[in-house]
């Protein structure tokens, strides 16, 4: 359950990431591929070398989806329905990988925001990312 303060904090943080969506998203993906190499299996059809067009483009989409979802968390299931269908029926991603990306998103935000990524912000974003991945994995169950 997210409090109103947490919801506001989540919107604020993701809104600040929109102008740097490509950088933040591609960095999180690159961190995931480097730290958890098995995650690369889902991207064998793309060029995922550092700074590649595919990496930047996919990274941007992730951050934009996170920012959009944050604006109305109570309707996350509806907002993310197309993405959920895509991940479940076409991409068929093993849902454990969402946790790995979530962790790398947290590390990227921590590097980018430094001390402004406070324990309270960390907790709020962690909760939001779990809610987000639960929706993406929902069609499997």
């Amino acid at each position, binding site marked *: 359950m997210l409090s109103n303060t947490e919801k506001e904090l989540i919107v604020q943080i993701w809104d600040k990431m929109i102008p740097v969506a490509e950088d933040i998203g591609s*960095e999180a993906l*690159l*961190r995931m*591929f*480097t*730290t958890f190499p098995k995650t690369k299996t889902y991207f064998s059809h793309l060029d995922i070398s550092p700074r590649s067009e595919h990496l930047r483009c996919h990274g941007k989409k992730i951050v934009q989806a996170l920012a959009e979802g944050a604006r109305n968390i109570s309707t996350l299931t509806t907002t993310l329905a197309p993405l959920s269908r895509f991940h479940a029926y076409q991409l068929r991603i093993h849902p454990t990988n969402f946790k790995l990306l979530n*962790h790398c998103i*947290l*590390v990227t935000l*921590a*590097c*980018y*925001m*430094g*001390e402004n*990524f406070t*324990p*309270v912000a*960390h*907790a709020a974003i*962690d909760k939001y990312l779990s809610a987000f991945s639960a929706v993406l994995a929902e069609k499997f169950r």
Partner: protein
Amino acid sequence: MVEWSDSERKTIASVWGKIKVDKIGPQTLARVLIVYPWTQRYFGSFGNLSSASAVLANLKVANHGKTVLNALDKAVKNLDGIKATYSELSQLHCNTLNVDPDNFRLLADCLTIVVATSFRSEFNPAVQATWQKFLSVVVAALSSRYH
């Protein structure tokens, strides 16, 4: 048996050398308690943990955070014998403290995130990968004597 390349050994020693235990230790344990509130079950004797600010101001949390992080020094100095290094500590957590070992992973993840807030861009993807490989070996060692 884990194998470490020379560059991994260097990276681990360099990250550890720059970690200020007195600052990072308390912040790490505080984040575990704030982000994963169920971990508070193990710290019933620590007093007020009722809010993020209470956890951050709690001296027992701060002191225990330093103790925990100081224990990592042993692993850094015994990279080739991490499992044996933590054998007793693992038994203590299993038999006496009854700590669910998945919490070691949560602690490791919080440590990585606190290190990232402090090192910023220096904590690049390659450094993160090596650092987390190291922490995953420590977590496995701490979980190794559960039966």
